[in-house]
C-alpha cells in the first residue's frame, strides 16, 4: 500500500486490543430463585409461567404452570397465595396478583378445553393412591406424567376430598372442581369411587408396586360442652359436608361457631348464606392470634358475621349458650376471668380442628404416628418402604396448596423408589432478594388503570361473587411481574456495556459475554433490573 507522507503503518482496528485481559472479576449470567417460587408450597415455577403469560401466550403459561400443579382453576380460588406475600413487587408498589392470573389461566384452560401433554412411555408400574383430595390427585397426576399407572381409591361418592366436602361453594364452584378432575381422568388417572381402603397392605395386593396415602383429616375434634339438648351441638366437618347433600343442614336463626380457624369462618359464612339472622364466632383468643387468614376475617366481618374474641363456651342451653370471658396472661395464653354472659343460640357448631382417620394403617410395620400425624421422610415415605403419605394426614399446615406440593414430591420419590433409587431434589438456586435487583427500572402502573386493577385484585382474592380477570387485566397483571432473578431480555446488559462486550443471542436465547473485550467493570450487574448477573473473581 502506498502510504501518504509521514505515514508508516496501515490503519488498524482496535479489535486487535483484547481488553478482556484487564479483567479481575467476570460477570456471569445466573438464574436465581424468585421469592414467589420459594414461597409456593406446591413448588410452582410462578415466574416461569408468568413469563409466558406476559407475552399473551396463555396456553404455554398454563402448560408451564401445570407441570407442577394440575389444578390451577381450583388453586386460583382457594390458595392463600403465600407467593404474593413473598413477591418483591410489594417493595415497589404492591404484589403481583399471581393468584388472579393463575385463576385466569385455569379458567381459560377449561373454556378452551386444553388437555395435558401426553405422558411419558408406560413404565408398567402401578401405584395405588388412597384418597382423591388435592394430595391424591396431585400424586396421581405426576405419576401418570412419568408413565406409571395411578389408580385412586376414594371412599366417598364423589372425587375431590376436602375440596368438595370442606370448602364452601362460594369459594370453589363445583363445576370448576369437576372440570379439573375430569381433565385428570381424561389424562389417564383412574378413580374408583366408594372404595374405602380399610387395610393398606391388603389393598396393595391388587397388583400395586407402591402406595400413596392422602386420606385427609375428616374427624372433627371435640370439646366437652355440657348441653341440655345435644342435637344442637354440631361439628363443622359435618355441616360443610352436609352442604353437598340433598338438603342443607338445619342450623336455625342464630348460629354460634366455636373456633378461630378458616373452617370456623367457612361455617359462619355458610350459615349466613343459609339464612341465619345472626352468625357469631366465639374464639378464646384475640384477632391477632386467630389462625384464620386475615382477609377471610375481614370478608366475614363485611358480610355481617360477628366475632366474640377472648371467649369460651361453658355450656349450651335450650335457646342460649353460656360464654366465659377470657384474658391473656403474660405468656399470651387465655385464662378464665369468671365473668359470664349468655348469648342466644339455636345451634352451636364446633370448628376446633380435625384429625386424620388412620385406621387403615393398623398393622403396617415400621409406621410412626406422632400427635395424630403420620411421620414421613424428605421424600414423603413413611417408615414402611413403598408406603408414602401426604396432605392433611402428614402435616399441620393444612391447605390445598400444601397437599398438591406433598403429592408432587411423593410422586417424584415414588418414581425414584420404583427404579430402586433414592429421590434427591435438585439443589435450589440462591434467592433473588430485592437487594440483588435494581428496582429503578420498574415503572409504576398507569394511574388510569390502577384503581380498576386494585378492585379486580381485591375481588380475585375473594372469589365468591365475581368472575376473574378478563384478558386485558390478566395481561396487565402478568406484566407487573419483575421476573426476579431470571433474565427477561430487557437488553439492559447489552445496552449499558461501555465495551460492546455483550452479545445478543436473539429472542428467547438471552445473551452471552464476549470475554475478549469485557473489562469486568460490573455495570451490567449493577444495571440488571432483575438481578440475573453476578460478578465472580477471575481465577488468575
Amino acid at each position, binding site marked *: 500500500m502506498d502510504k501518504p507522507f509521514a505515514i508508516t503503518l496501515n490503519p488498524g482496528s482496535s479489535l486487535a486490543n483484547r481488553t478482556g485481559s484487564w479483567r479481575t472479576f467476570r460477570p456471569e449470567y445466573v438464574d436465581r430463585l424468585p421469592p414467589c417460587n420459594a414461597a409456593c408450597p406446591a413448588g410452582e415455577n410462578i415466574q416461569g409461567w408468568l413469563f409466558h403469560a406476559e407475552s399473551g401466550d396463555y396456553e404455554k403459561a398454563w402448560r408451564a404452570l401445570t407441570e407442577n400443579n394440575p389444578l390451577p382453576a381450583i388453586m386460583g380460588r382457594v390458595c392463600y397465595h403465600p407467593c404474593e406475600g413473598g413477591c418483591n413487587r410489594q417493595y415497589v408498589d404492591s404484589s403481583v396478583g399471581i393468584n388472579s392470573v393463575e385463576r385466569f389461566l385455569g379458567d381459560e384452560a377449561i373454556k378452551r378445553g386444553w388437555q395435558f401433554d401426553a405422558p411419558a412411555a408406560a413404565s408398567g408400574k402401578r401405584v395405588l393412591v388412597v384418597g382423591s383430595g388435592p394430595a391424591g390427585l396431585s400424586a396421581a397426576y405426576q405419576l401418570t406424567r412419568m408413565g406409571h399407572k395411578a389408580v385412586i381409591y376414594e371412599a366417598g361418592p364423589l372425587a375431590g376430598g376436602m375440596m368438595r366436602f370442606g370448602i364452601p361453594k362460594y369459594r370453589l364452584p363445583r363445576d370448576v372442581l369437576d372440570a379439573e378432575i375430569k381433565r385428570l381422568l381424561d389424562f389417564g388417572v383412574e378413580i374408583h369411587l366408594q372404595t374405602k381402603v380399610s387395610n393398606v397392605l391388603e389393598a396393595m395386593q391388587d397388583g400395586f408396586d407402591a402406595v400413596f396415602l392422602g386420606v385427609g383429616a375428616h374427624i372433627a375434634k371435640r370439646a366437652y360442652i355440657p348441653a341440655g339438648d345435644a342435637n344442637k351441638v354440631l361439628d363443622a366437618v359435618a355441616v360443610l359436608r352436609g352442604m353437598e347433600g340433598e338438603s342443607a343442614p338445619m342450623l336455625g336463626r342464630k348460629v354460634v361457631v366455636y373456633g378461630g380457624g378458616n373452617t370456623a369462618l367457612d361455617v359462619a359464612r355458610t350459615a349466613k348464606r343459609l339464612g341465619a339472622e345472626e352468625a357469631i364466632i366465639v374464639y378464646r383468643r384475640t384477632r391477632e392470634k386467630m389462625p384464620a387468614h386475615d382477609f377471610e376475617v375481614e370478608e366475614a366481618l363485611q358480610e355481617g358475621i360477628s366475632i366474640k374474641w377472648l371467649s369460651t363456651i361453658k355450656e349450651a342451653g335450650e335457646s342460649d349458650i353460656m360464654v366465659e370471658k377470657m384474658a391473656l396472661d403474660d405468656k399470651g395464653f387465655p385464662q378464665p376471668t369468671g365473668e359470664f354472659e349468655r348469648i342466644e343460640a339455636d345451634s352451636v357448631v364446633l370448628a376446633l380442628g380435625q384429625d386424620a382417620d388412620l385406621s387403615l394403617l393398623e398393622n403396617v410395620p415400621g409406621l410412626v404416628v406422632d400427635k395424630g400425624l403420620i411421620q414421613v421422610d424428605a421424600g414423603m415415605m413413611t417408615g414402611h418402604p413403598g408406603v408414602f403419605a401426604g396432605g392433611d394426614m402428614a402435616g399441620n399446615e393444612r391447605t390445598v396448596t400444601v397437599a398438591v406440593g406433598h403429592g408432587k414430591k411423593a410422586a417424584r420419590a415414588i418414581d425414584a423408589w420404583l427404579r430402586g433409587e433414592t429421590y434427591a431434589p435438585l439443589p435450589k438456586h440462591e434467592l433473588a432478594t430485592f437487594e440483588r435487583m435494581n428496582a429503578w427500572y420498574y*415503572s409504576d402502573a398507569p394511574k388510569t*388503570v390502577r384503581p380498576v386493577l386494585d378492585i379486580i385484585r381485591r375481588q380475585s382474592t375473594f372469589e365468591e361473587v365475581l368472575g376473574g380477570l378478563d384478558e386485558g387485566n390478566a395481561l396487565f397483571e402478568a406484566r407487573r411481574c419483575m421476573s426476579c432473578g431470571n433474565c427477561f431480555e430487557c437488553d*439492559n446488559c*447489552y445496552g449499558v456495556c461501555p*465495551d460492546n462486550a455483550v452479545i445478543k443471542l436473539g429472542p428467547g436465547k438471552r445473551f452471552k459475554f464476549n470475554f475478549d473485550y469485557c473489562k469486568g*467493570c460490573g*455495570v451490567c450487574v*449493577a444495571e440488571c433490573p432483575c438481578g440475573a448477573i453476578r460478578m465472580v473473581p477471575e481465577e488468575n
Partner: protein
Amino acid sequence: MSFQPVKFYQTGTFTVGNRLLPPEERSVQASSKRFNSINSGHRACQGCGEALGARYAIDAAMEATDGQLIAANATGCLEVFSTPYPETSWQIPWIHSLFGNTAAVATGIAAALKVKGKAQIRVVAQGGDGGTTDIGFGCLSGMFERNDDVLYICYDNGGYMNTGVQRSSATPAAARTSTTPAVGAEPGNVFDQGKFLPAIALAHDIPYVATATVADLRDLEAKVRRAMEIRGARYIHILVPCPLGWGTASHDTIRMARLAKETGIFPVFEAEHGEIKSVLAIRRPLPVEEYLKPQKRYAHLFGKQPRVDVIAHLQAQADRNIRRYGLQARKESH
C-alpha cells in the same frame, strides 16, 4: 417529552429494550444491528461513562442520518482512548482536530459538504468538557453565533481526566482534582459555580440545546434524533460519570448519572431557540449527599467534621436547578 413513554410493560420505558415491544419502539441500543460506532478494544477505563455516552449518541445520530455522518473529535479522553495510532475504534468517518478547534473543523466540513452538494451528509463535533468549556469555547461560541449546520456534543465528566484529573471550568464546586486538592476539610475546587455551558448555549438562541445523561438512554436517543431533524447549530451536553476522576466504583457509572439527575445536581432539559421545551422531572427525590457520598472527590466533605456548610451550599445549588428548570417530581405517568 419528545419521546412517547411506553405503558403497560413491566419496565415501561426505562430499560434499554423489552422483549414485548415491537422492534420499531425499541431503542437503537437494543438492536442487534446497531452501528457500534465506537468499537470494542478501545482503551477507556473500566466502566467509562464517556465511551458509553459516545456510543449512545453517535449510534443514534447514525440511525437518524442513515449512516451519512462525519465526526470531528477534539483532543481528550475520547480521542486518546479510541485512536492510539494506528488503531481506531471508530467505525464512521472520523477526524481528530486540535484540542480547541473542533467546532471550527466541523464548521469547515459542513461548509465543504455544502459546496460539494452533499448536504445530506451530516456533521457532528464532539469533545470533552475541557475541549468544550475551556479550550474550545471561542470556536464553539462562533459556531453557535454563525448558526453553522453542526451538532456539537459535549461529554461532560467534569475535568481533564486522561492527563491526570486536572480541574476544568466544568468541574463542580468543592470537588477535589489534582490541581484543586482538598487541604484537610477545605474544599477542593473553590470556584463556586462550575461553568454550565448548556445555559450559555441557550443564551445564543440557537435552534436546539439539550442536556442528557447516560442514565436515561431513551431520552438521550430522542434528543439526538430531534437534533438531526434540525439544520443549524445544535448543542447536546451529556453527563458522563468518570470512575477514575470521581473516585467511584466502575459499576456505579450509570447510578452516579442517575443520582446527579435525581438530586437536581444536573438538570436534564431540552430547548429550541432559547426556550425550554421540556424537562426530565425528578422521579424519586433525594438529598445531594446521596450523590456526593459515593464519590471520593467529595470525601473531604464527609470527614470527622463534615462540612455541612459546603454540603448545604451544594444542596442550595441543586434546589436552584430544581426551581429554575421546574424539575419537581410528578406523579408517575409511565
